[in-house]
């Protein structure tokens, strides 16, 4: 009887010990899980906060330093050695010219390529090659575009250093963007529209003209906005193709003459001439334009989404 009692006690004790060890282990695991959880949370919040802070800092710093240097006179005059004042009218005009010229050339090319891919192409190899090429193009750094643009457009095609050569270089750079956005919007045109048009006896070209093209307006507009943003921000590709002159020209004269866009002018003023006030003034303009373009892109996207639903 005694032995039995002892044994039971022993078992109870063992049980107790086992439970205790188990509980200790469990708390250890729970503690580990809790620290893991907490550290991940902290890392995520800190990273997101840092990213947000960076954006706020960049925008406010550039605007605070740049806006006091902005004036009407600064915007509508050209640099003068006589009064030793710097104006950025030529750079603004050059930027406008280069944006217009690039879009004018890249739109038909990009939209045409997208239409070929979604409407005409039946050979999978050609489609693959075109898509691969577009991906490759969007990965090539702008300095390489600048070099090849200089060799091909300025030297080989005899355009010299001019806004047009710069625009042609930008055309190649922006081709994938326009192509992709157009293609995406073409995919949302219902197949039944096309079938309906074919069923009524329309030829392929007629279908493309009357049914497909109106359906890709949203993609084209989005592509344009994205391209304008990219052109505004581009500098490395333009340095050797469009040059950095500050002359005021009309659109057609301007295209055949060299000229600096806003970004190139910023670079030259900041790095080569040490005119940081001017550089910040240009930077603040660019920053405001970037914000505007981003807003426009989101709004256009929302507007067309609503329309489609």
């Amino acid at each position, binding site marked *: 009887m005694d032995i039995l009692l002892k044994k039971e006690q022993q078992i109870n004790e063992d049980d107790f010990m086992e439970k205790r060890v188990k509980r200790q282990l469990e708390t250890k695991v729970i503690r580990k899980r809790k620290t893991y959880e907490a550290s991940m949370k902290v890392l*995520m919040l800190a990273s997101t906060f840092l990213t947000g802070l960076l954006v706020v800092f960049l925008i406010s710093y550039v605007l605070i330093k740049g806006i006091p240097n902005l004036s009407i006179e600064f915007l509508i005059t050209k640099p003068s050695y006589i009064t030793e004042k710097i104006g950025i009218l030529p750079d603004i005009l050059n930027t406008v010219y280069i944006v217009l010229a690039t879009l004018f050339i890249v739109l038909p*090319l990009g939209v045409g390529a997208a239409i070929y891919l979604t409407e005409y192409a039946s050979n999978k190899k*050609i489609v693959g090659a075109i898509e691969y090429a577009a991906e490759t193009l969007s*990965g090539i750094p702008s*300095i*390489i575009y600048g070099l090849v643009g200089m060799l091909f457009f300025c030297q080989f095609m005899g355009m010299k250093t001019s806004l047009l050569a710069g625009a042609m270089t930008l055309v190649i750079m922006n081709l994938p963007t326009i192509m992709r956005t157009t293609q995406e919007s073409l995919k949302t045109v219902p197949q039944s529209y096309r079938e309906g048009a074919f069923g009524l006896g329309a030829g392929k070209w007629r279908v493309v003209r009357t049914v497909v093209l109106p359906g890709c307006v949203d993609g084209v507009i989005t592509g344009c906005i994205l391209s304008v943003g990219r052109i505004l921000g581009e500098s490395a590709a333009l340095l050797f193709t469009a040059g950095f002159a500050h002359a005021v020209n009309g659109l057609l004269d301007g295209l055949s003459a060299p000229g600096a866009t806003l970004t190139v002018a910023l670079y030259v003023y900041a790095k080569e001439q040490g005119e940081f006030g001017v550089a910040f003034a240009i930077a603040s303009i660019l920053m405001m334009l970037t914000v505007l*373009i981003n807003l426009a892109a989101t709004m256009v996207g929302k507007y067309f989404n609503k329309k489609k639903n």
Partner: protein
Amino acid sequence: MANKATAFLIGWRIEMKKTKIIENIIHGIFLILGLITVASVLLITIYLVIAGIPAIREIGFFKFLFGKNWASTAAEPVFGILPFILTSVYGTAGAIVLGVPIGFFTAVYLSKIATGKMRETMEAAVSLLAGIPSVVYGLVGMLVLVPGIRKIFHVPDGASLLAAIIILAIMILPSIIKVSITALDAVPKEYEEASLALGATPIETYFRVSVPAAKSGIAAAVVLGVGRAIGEAMAVMMVSGNVPNMPSLFQSVRFLTTAVASEMAYSSGLQQQALFSIALVLFFFIMLINVTLNFFMKKEGKEA
């Protein structure tokens, strides 16, 4: 009567032939438009190879790639681009080490935890970061980062590899965040629900289930960041000091991109050809990155 019908038929047939010819012409035009991208890639490749090979041949392949000195304007010019290659590699690696963790955690937070307005605002902010021109980054870097580094680390000149790394890390953030978010959003809800049902906490689920499921997409984001960093020229040019030193964190350095950009304007002869060769080397790196990127993208496409 019969004559009229045949005449009509013949006329109709001619009409049909005409439309068919027109259709074919239009098809041809679109085909040409489509092939312009392919032509552009070929043009770029061919031009770079043709322009880049002569200097490499004249200087010597190993002397060019592994030469430690670059003195292009000396009386007896020396063209060795190892400093540029190493600087580009170190600079990119540094930017990745610094930028990827921040971008990754931000992406997980935005994709899985942030809701509604918060996510929308942050995504808009990230897009904005992507849209800021690189010269603006360069300008801010010149006036904030460079003096800051000089003061904090007590070095004579803040224009250094470190400054370039920090700027690059910021510049690659948007691509990393955006592509990672897309990949994380594409993870099937069922995976996460199963993990939650097994007793994992939400955060454990995000990092131990969602992230591994999206790993190809996140890898693609990193590779994309590598491509952006190695190709950036203007911002780096403004903050890195632009002296052809072997890379060291607090010294002025010159990247592959900036080597091309800084001397192109006044170069000629063998010096200019050597610059084209540098561009060819850079292009080779970019192609390597493109192939890797494609590999991960395809994998991601298969997994999704």
